[in-house]
């Protein structure tokens, strides 16, 4: 199934990674069209259930993109997000779903290239893992 195009949900924070996505856009850095961004004020807003729901609805992968450590506009939203993402990974491995489907990334508003590389890296990783076991219909 080499033409498998994964669908990846991205929780992106208004101040840093969303701005990095904008910069990737204005610098016209091309990256795979597999990600769909859900904007949140801060990655601290993303709860464990949001990530699980995205997976349950059928996303092949989910990643949370927050600010560089220490530069979060709300000081420690991104630390919180990192811990919750790790908790979700543990839960997934408990019900033996590949924990690599969920990742946490950190980037500043000025790192447009990094945003694009993350999108590319995540798409390639999910392609390797294969489609989510929860949406057989879309394989």
């Amino acid at each position, binding site marked *: 199934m080499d033409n498998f195009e994964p669908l990846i949900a991205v929780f992106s924070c208004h101040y840093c990674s969303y701005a990095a996505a904008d910069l990737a856009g204005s610098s016209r850095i091309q990256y795979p069209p597999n990600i769909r961004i859900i904007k949140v004020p801060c990655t601290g807003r993303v709860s*464990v*259930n949001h990530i699980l*729901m995205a997976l349950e609805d059928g996303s092949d992968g989910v990643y949370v993109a927050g600010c560089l450590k220490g530069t979060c506009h709300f000081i420690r939203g991104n630390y919180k997000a990192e811990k919750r993402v790790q908790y979700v990974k543990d*839960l997934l491995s408990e*019900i033996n779903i590949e924990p690599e489907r969920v990742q946490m990334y950190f980037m500043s508003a000025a790192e447009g290239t990094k945003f694009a590389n993350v999108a590319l890296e995540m798409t390639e990783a999910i392609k390797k893992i294969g489609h989510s076991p*929860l949406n057989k219909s879309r394989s």
Partner: protein
Amino acid sequence: MIVGERKPMEELLGMIEDFERILVLGCKGCVTVCCAGGPKEVKTLSTLIRMDRKQKGRKVITIEASTELQCEPESIRPILEKMANQYDVVLSMACGAGVQTVAKLFPDKLVLPALNTNFTGIAEEHGVWTEACLACGDCVLGRTAGICPVTLCAKGLLNGPCGGASEGKCEVSKDQPCAWQEIYHALKRLNRLHYLKQKPQVKDWPVHPGRVVREDLREVETT
């Protein structure tokens, strides 16, 4: 508060193996405070169950609900009566007391515990709870400056340290302070060291299960 922790998913999934309609019943009391069995965790667990079953291609219906206090029958009855025959099994995310209250109230339905109830404890920091009280039924804290030797001393000694501690740490584990040294320092601080000299006491350990009765509160039969 009573502190509990969700069981490993493997064990949970094993328990509910042959059931299709599962009522995940949270409790908004202690287990919400220790973030183990509150409404949010109910939703997390239900999602995980659905994901597991979907992955295995097996049907499942999860019903999510939470009682105010699952150790209080009046808090359970309205919820469970309303959904009398919509579920095959109750997966209770309350502490042990909660699970047993449901089991007693609805004997014809299997009730499964989702949590392991650990202890009655203190919230040291957000996400970290430590055991504080064994509920021995005969509290000695008045004589030990508020530090319970029964719970905090590995051997539960009542009348002084075992002498195995080194540099203030219990011989059982070096990051656990020796309760009696703590008691000594506390009493010294409160200059009540003389409490230590009181005559040693013997504990009348309770017979389980305990029962507390307040006649003044009990229901009056008005024939």
